[in-house]
């Protein structure tokens, strides 16, 4: 069946429908990873977005247990070509069936490079995936322009708290849409990880006297998370060691007076170089963010840049002055992508007074 991707600027791509045939409006973003499509599909940070994979051959190894959450979160999926016969010893099925099962619409067979160039030049746009051949641009475009992702953290966070038992440090993980491997990276290092829903109060978390607090990644515009920001401010003041990733990093910055801004087309992929400003070492990182912390708004007495993106100079991490707090914009938990910065979890453990 034919499918159409209609962008808010009026561009239309015609391809083949994959997954659900349901119509969807979403923010269109691209990811440049060559492997790890399943981790991308199941990363809660993509809630409210439809993802274009720039690598043209997707689904080669099918569906495996490598999921970053219990289900796919993308609104839509846009690929050049889906493998008709995946091959891997852990393969449990095809992407086609997976998308159908979770009722996620998608489109294949379009010129994803041309689409990516459009998004690069014009910035992230909203779009619609539809199988309706009689679409009416005059009706659709205003709708596309009006669309916002809204507060999607509520959609992806866990409903109730859960615990990954461990004999080491006690970590409270605030689930803003956490990828599974954050908890696992800590748990693998011996931590007992308690995962809290996003709207848990600071009092509740602090009352358990955790050794450290982990703020996770998550979807959407950080400024939408007003209540959470207020709670994080309290966590900041608590003197408990805190490590934050991605959305967590942005929320901590907002909670302490800095500002965030929308990037033209974001960073999504597994090849972004980030420089540790202390050592001048460069690490290749996994990234997925559309917003960044504006370093011009930082109060030097509160936070200093700790990592910078070598490509475009945007902020990639902060070190909080006089606090046991550091936060990063990229994803040390990888999955998908390079594991080079996994050492940051060790640093967190040390910060909590533990040994790795």
């Amino acid at each position, binding site marked *: 069946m034919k499918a159409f991707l209609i962008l808010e600027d009026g561009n239309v791509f015609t391809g083949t429908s994959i997954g659900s045939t349901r119509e969807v409006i979403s923010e269109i973003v691209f990811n440049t990873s060559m492997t790890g499509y399943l981790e991308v599909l199941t990363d809660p940070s993509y809630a409210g977005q439809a993802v274009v994979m720039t*690598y043209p051959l997707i689904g080669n190894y099918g569906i*495996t247990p490598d999921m970053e959450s219990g289900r796919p979160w993308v609104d839509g999926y846009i690929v050049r070509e889906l493998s*008709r016969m995946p091959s*891997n010893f852990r393969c449990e099925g095809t992407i086609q069936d997976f998308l159908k099962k979770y009722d996620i619409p998608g489109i294949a067979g379009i010129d994803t490079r041309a689409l990516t160039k459009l998004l690069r030049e014009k910035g992230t746009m909203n779009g619609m995936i539809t199988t309706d051949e009689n679409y009416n641009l005059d009706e659709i475009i205003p709708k596309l322009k009006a669309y916002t992702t809204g507060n999607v953290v509520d959609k992806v966070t866990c409903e109730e708290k859960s615990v990954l038992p461990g004999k080491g440090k006690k970590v409270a993980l605030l689930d803003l849409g956490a990828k599974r491997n954050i908890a696992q990276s800590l748990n693998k290092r011996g931590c007992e990880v308690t995962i809290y829903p996003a709207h848990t109060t600071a009092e509740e978390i602090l009352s358990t006297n955790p050794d450290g607090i982990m703020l996770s990644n998550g979807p959407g515009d950080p400024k939408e998370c007003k209540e959470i920001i207020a709670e994080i401010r309290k966590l900041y003041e608590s003197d408990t060691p805190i490590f934050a990733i991605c959305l967590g990093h942005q929320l901590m910055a907002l909670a302490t007076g800095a500002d965030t801004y929308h990037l033209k087309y974001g960073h999504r992929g597994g*090849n972004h170089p980030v420089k540790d400003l202390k050592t001048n070492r460069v690490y290749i990182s996994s990234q997925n963010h559309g917003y960044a912390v504006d370093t011009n708004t930082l109060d030097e007495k509160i936070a200093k840049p700790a990592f910078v993106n*070598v490509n475009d100079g945007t902020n990639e991490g902060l070190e909080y002055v006089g606090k046991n707090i550091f936060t990063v914009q990229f994803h040390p938990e990888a999955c998908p992508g390079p594991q080079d910065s996994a050492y940051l979890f060790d640093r967190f453990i040390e910060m909590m007074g533990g040994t790795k």
Partner: protein
Amino acid sequence: MPKNKDIKKVLVIGSGPIVIGQAAEFDYAGTQACRSLKEEGIEVVLVNSNPATIMTDKDIADEVYIEPLTAKVLEQIIIKEKPDSVLPTLGGQAGLNLGMELAESGFLEKHGVKLIGTTAETIFKAEDRQAFKDTMEKIGEPCAPSQVVHNVEDGIKFTNTIGYPVVLRPAYTLGGSGGGIAHNETELIDILSNGLRLSRVGEVLVERCIAGWKEIEYEVMRDANGNCITVCNMENIDPVGVHTGDSIVVAPSQTLGDKEYQMLRTSALNIISELNITGGCNVQYALHPETFEYCVIEVNPRVSRSSALASKATGYPIAKVAAKIALGYTLDEIKNAITGKTYASFEPMLDYCVVKIPRLPFDKFITAKRTLTTQMKATGEVMSICNNFEGALMKAIRSLEQHVDSLLSYDFSKLSDEELQEQLHVVDDRRIWVIAEALRRGVSYDKIHEITKIDKWFIDKLAILVEMEQDLKTKPLTVELLKEAKRMEFPDKVIAELTGKSEKEIHDMRYENGIVAAFKMVDTCAAEFEASTPYYYSVFGSENEAEETTPKKKVLVLGSGPIRIGQGIEFDYCSVHSTWAFAKEGWETVIVNNNPETVSTDFDIADKLYFEPLTLEDVEAIVKLEKPDGAVVQFGGQTAIKLTESLMKMGVKILGTKAEDVDAAEDRELFDEILEKTGIPRAAGGTVFTAEEAKEVAHRLGYPVLVRPSYVLGGQGMKIAYNDEEIEEFIGIINRIAQDHPILVDKYLMGKEIEVDAVCDGTDILIPGIMEHIERTGVHSGDSISVYPAPTISDEVREMLVEYTKRLAQALHVVGLINIQFIVMDEQVYVIEVNPRSSRTVPYISKVTGIPIVDLATKVIIGNTIKGMGYTPGLAPTADYIAIKMPVFSFEKLRGAEISLGPEMKSTGECLGIAKTFDEALYKAFLGAGVQLPKYKQMIMTVKDADKPEAVGVAKRFAALGYKIYATRSTAKYLQEHGVDALRVNKITQESPNVMDLILGHKIDLVIDTPTQGNGDKNRDGFLIRRNAIETGVYCITAMDTANALATSLENAQSELTLVDIATVKNI
């Protein structure tokens, strides 16, 4: 870390002559690195014995030594030039070994010279078997466990600790004979006891068997600050067991999940860090297809063939960055030259798929075993880029220029089902065609996978192509079907064959429906950042993004495709120099080529690079888009010449010599007319199509005759026939492939062979130099030792050669280059062959005479005259040096290949000896070719009757050099009768100790064996002697002229060589 200010002058070591396993990729890497060093204001001293390279040009390095690559020579250069550093990581294994040797001997330290790019410790840790194993163990990286055993009991004990199956490799046996894979104890005892018996030292290596695992490679970069990145990973379609150089390779990996991908990536980063490499490194892995278990197969702490491929596949210039790192820069300080905005400290992301297919030489060596093993056999490779795997594979197939353009090209349809299954077990260069046939017959993926171990994902892709063949054959050709076939890159010709339509019908249907190729950019970042580097590949069904053209005049330069015997790196040299010359004259340049190993496919050589197959259809798509003002075909070897007619039909002007004149040189009758008109003699002959006709001509001329197809390069299919039987055999071989053109049969003249390259502007000619071959006619010019200036011809003959060259160039209206081969017999000059194009000898003669031949030819093509450029027409004054070009062979890599020299070219590369005297030049040439004699001062002679009188002279010379001469019965008898103290040795078939025992005993320096014709027992014995000599590393000579030359060289051996800086050779 900023640039290290202490580095001011660097010696760069090249890789020497092209041999199998060490080819053009090192010229590419070396050239890129030298340019990168010079960009930083570093003075570059270059040493490489290979004159056909671009890196040995004086524009690339400041001081250039085309000298033998031995430690001794390098020491002399270091003493003379006083560099502060040596960069050994760009010259392949040869360069690395030399760097190591200089470091270990303490020479570098003594002279205050540093190794940069790597350290001796790093090389040792990566290259020494035990040190490598220990290092990997230390950081927990698994290697395939192995142990050397001397008895069966130890073998069983060890195998019980690692598990079956195991590979058994006896030490010091020919080509690994006596080895095998044991799946259980019975087989182990059987193979191991046999192997222990066959091994001269009673030693067998028992190793965990990883054959059939996935073979994956990572290209990694690291700087002195410890920053690491991976440039790219690659997956071999052929599982472990086939050398990666002989495998079909895809980039990036296709069947690895992120978990496997990152597991191996992290391992590669750990390894490069532990080895403390600063620069590039290649790590090869075997990955178990059904678990996460993996083994490190090998680490190359240098740039390699794979890194050249990775550079071209991603656009990331590994050699350039490695050179900058060697100077002390860190990755985040080096700009990404493709985007101009980002830095080298990132990882390229591909939004396309790359397929590499090796170019194997079995069309040249029909007796050689086609089987692919861990010993590399490919002479070159092709690469293609597409946004789907099927398309990339199809494009790569037709880039090979081996008469293949689809999965139907090798016909296995006649095999029975049983035979086909049998054939599936054979691992050779035709395996994907066999699989395609199996898929056509409905053999299951499981069965094919079980036999071949090739991942089912790839088998499915082959099946998709086979299904498309079926659809085209059986369904009506709708626009949709045609679109889909083109998306998979089915050529029009194949679609036409399958649909029963004409190629023109398909072509027209495509254009009527807008089904045309679009071009996409290779930008290292999957379009994330804007890039301006015009490096393109074609796809169907997409938006075109090749940029608008400039108002400048535009030239299309057609490259020479994969490196193969007969068409080597020299044509890339010519293409690149021509491109540069056009650019200097203000033209916009566009290169089309498909060889990832070459300089011409580097992204900053031409204004635009199209990485595409060199076929009519592919080139037409580029022509339609670029609308060039003209095309040059005379620099790209036969590959480019073959496209001449098609280009003209597309309306592209051929710059330089006209197509009809090229034809006149190839067409027997037209050429005879020209010879008649110009009064130039040639050997009598005729043209034929069948064996019957050939015999008639041969009888008329009298045997021996020279038989060859027309329109071929490197004398392919050329033979000397002595009787009717041989005529039948040779014509049969030639006609295995349908011939559009007749076969030539000429009287064979035995004389001196002379070669001339000249530039002609339509009126005047400029001959930079005349070369003479050491071997008499009958040995292909590419396989002969060639001497400049011609040492033994008289002034009269020289004048005649110049005059004939002029007449031929004028008669053929040559504008550009012409290459002519002559025979001189009894002071009479005959023409053998005229090629109105560049030749193998152009780079070498340019360098020794200082005359930039390609540059001049290009300027002439644009409209300059020889006089106008300040040159005096005619033969240029003789240079101050004697330069001798020595062919280099790769016979030891090709089991079963016949090594005796003849009219068909067999060498893979060449080196140069340059000196003030003939004797020293000859000595250097042999030394450069790796002939480092004497060692044991023992040799074997076994020559055919006709050569016996000459053999006496040769034997006496070697005896005078202190050689003990062994000879088989009749040769020994003859030599003894003529005063040579030769020792008789038994023939192969006689009891030990016989000639074979001598060879295998490793006590022989040299075998002189001149082969008899025909297929008799004598020839079989000779074949065995020659093969065994080659495989045990004994130098083997098959022509008396070569033997005399070697004797001259040894008589003049000297320990101190006089060095010649090519960059100072005056432009005469």
